[in-house]
């Protein structure tokens, strides 16, 4: 059994499962479950955007939420001003992509690397947070859309089928759209990574200097990767604004940025399935912990229902017990079971992460 075959088997399986999930869920699950799953799908796209930039591009980005938020705000503002959702959707992808390109040019062509990238991206998203957060006054508006400061923008009109404002995408449609988008993103990225570009990108992550000495310009590849990641995050932001019909500055906040990183680490860097799993897992967990709070004053009950406390313990335990992240660990366990030729083959599929401390 050679790597290619294995690869295609894996992809095929993922595809079948994904499509089955998309088609069956609304028929089997209750509406509230479907709605929850919708947001998880959307956030998974966001997780993938960082998985690409960081896991494969080796670009430590603390500010992925910047592009996510820009996407959401762009969609909201454009929607109020235009009405038909086609243009806003495209803007919500183009603008963050453009912003990522600018920022990326500024950083990579300035030869900024590793943790300094982290700080700059973090700083950028915090600037956005502070700025947008202080636009509560009526004087802050773009066209007819008021920015609303801390309160954000409520009542954002949902997507409609291209051209016909009336044909609004309903809740079920939103689920189909988000799931399809996630699947498309996943397979798109798999293709990207299999392409020349993707393999060179991974090479640069592994050893930038060597790639340079072979005649590749790392700055250009990083810039491209970063821009694609920004576009994806922006797209996710647009879907997010649709799902809840609101957006507020906390979308740019430290908590949001950190959360995205957590998803990727939990699921496993250097994989694509991992961040998806991590994202859904962590979100489901905090929602599950938040629901069914005990009322009353019983101290122990309150401690056990104390979300940050429990979540914190789980995360710490996780790092110590599953350091490589969920999917790689499971993967290795699986591969440990099969023969070594297959193991060699499989390691080719998902390049191992090289920790840069």
């Amino acid at each position, binding site marked *: 059994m050679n790597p290619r075959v294995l690869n295609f088997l894996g992809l095929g399986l993922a595809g079948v499962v994904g499509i089955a999930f998309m088609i069956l869920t609304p028929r089997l699950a209750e509406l*509230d479950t479907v709605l929850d799953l919708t947001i998880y799908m959307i956030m998974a796209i966001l997780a993938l955007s960082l998985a690409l930039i960081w896991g494969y591009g080796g670009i430590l980005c603390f500010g992925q939420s910047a592009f996510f938020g820009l996407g959401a705000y762009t969609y909201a503002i454009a929607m109020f001003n235009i009405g038909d959702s086609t243009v806003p959707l495209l803007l919500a992808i183009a603008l963050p992509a453009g912003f990522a390109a600018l920022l990326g040019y500024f950083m990579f062509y300035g030869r900024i690397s590793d943790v300094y990238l982290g700080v700059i991206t973090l700083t950028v998203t915090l600037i956005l947070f502070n700025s947008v957060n202080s636009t509560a006054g009526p004087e802050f508006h773009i066209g007819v859309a008021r920015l609303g*400061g801390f*309160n954000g923008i409520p009542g954002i009109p949902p997507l409609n089928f291209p051209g016909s404002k009336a044909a609004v995408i309903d809740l079920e449609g939103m689920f189909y759209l988000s799931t399809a988008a996630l699947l498309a993103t996943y397979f798109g990225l798999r293709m990207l990574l299999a392409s020349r570009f993707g393999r060179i990108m991974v090479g640069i992550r592994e050893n930038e200097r060597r790639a340079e000495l072979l005649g590749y310009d790392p700055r250009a590849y990083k810039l491209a990767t970063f821009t694609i990641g920004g576009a994806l995050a922006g797209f996710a932001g647009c879907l997010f604004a649709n799902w809840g019909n609101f957006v507020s500055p906390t979308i740019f906040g430290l908590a949001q940025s950190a959360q995205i990183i957590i998803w990727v680490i939990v699921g496993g860097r250097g994989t694509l399935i991992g961040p998806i799993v991590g994202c859904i897992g962590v979100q489901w967990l905090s929602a599950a912990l*938040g629901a069914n709070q005990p*009322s009353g004053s019983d101290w122990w009950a309150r401690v056990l229902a104390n979300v*940050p406390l429990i979540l914190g313990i789980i995360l710490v335990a996780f790092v110590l017990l599953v350091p490589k992240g969920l999917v790689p660990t499971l993967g290795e366990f699986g591969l440990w079971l099969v023969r070594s030729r297959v193991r060699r083959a499989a390691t080719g599929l998902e390049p191992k992460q090289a920790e840069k401390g």
Partner: protein
Amino acid sequence: MRLDRRRFLQGTAAIAATGTFGSSAWAEDPINVASIHDLSGGLDIYGKPMVDALTLAVEEANAAGGLLGRQIKLINYDTQSNMQLYTQFAQQAALKDKVAVVHGGITSASREVIRPVLDRFKTLYFYNTQYEGGVCDRNQFDTGVTPAQTVEKLVPYAMKKWGKKVYVVAADYNYGQITSQWVKKYVTENGGEVSSIDFFPLDVTNFGPTISKIQAAKPDFVWSALVGGAHISFYRQWAAAGMRKSIPMASTTFAVGNEHIVLSPDECNGMLICYNYFQDLKNKTNEAFVAAFHKRFGADYPNVTELAMGTYQGFRLWAEAVKKAGSIDRMKVIEALETGISIDAPSGKVTIDPPTHHCVLDVHIAEVKDKKLNVLEDFAQQKPSDTAAVCNLIKNPDDNQQYVIKI
């Protein structure tokens, strides 16, 4: 129960139908009531007391035999100061728990996140926090005070006491912005002047420069519309700079987060505030309530806040309406509430104002004194005149928005 595809496509109406059907089918199963508040994260200062009050209200009702002979089940969500969870939990409450009513939301932001969800899924919504006013939605009831009810009273009182030149510091968001506009309005109406209005994002903790600015402006008193844990440092730095003794302060946000307990007396004594409820109100209902509350949550419970009482009264009003309607069906209950239901609450008489779905209630001006709030003057039965200026749900019941009231 599962939804088959056809019903799913019929959409929300069908879901609401199945919801009410499902719950009124057997008199035995409990009535679900959802609480959606921040019990962790930055806003839990406000959320925890609200949930405690709601818990007590539910337990009292159950002890008295429940509603319509059915027990009430409180389903309690912690939104962790995270907007996304407000949406998710509102959806769960409406669709999974099929609750009869949702009590929840703290900031206006969270309300505007919940409101459309509950409208869409036809679930009754009570918002029990004091806020900037202007929400006009037949599916929602607001039991908190709005600026016209408190600011209007406190401004002239403070000006009479201290003078006509006012410096306003406010939280930089919808509530702070609008409240400070009301302050300005009433100050000018009373022949004074607002020398400046400064806004601060909710996470600002360094007020040094501002305090210098205020000193330069030399106002007769400072009006604070600051909100949240970080802003408490303003009062600290204000006192530390020795300003508390020279320039007094009035506020309609102070003490809502128990600031008067967190701060030491010499950091906030003498400040004037105005609310619907104070724990030390002298009346039979309140004394009984406070006793019950301490019995339930311990005598050392810091303080029953304005928001906690809002929530308690919110539930009581809903329960009253359910009794009157003899059903928990959303429309029946709304109609019952719109008859102008009123209850004898710890804060005094509280009545639903049919056209605005806000409340007519007493307000009191009090002074902060050694971690206590001493009531100085009472104003009976204040109407939500600000919202009334823009909203009449009896005339146009399909209205559904938050008006920005022209000031």
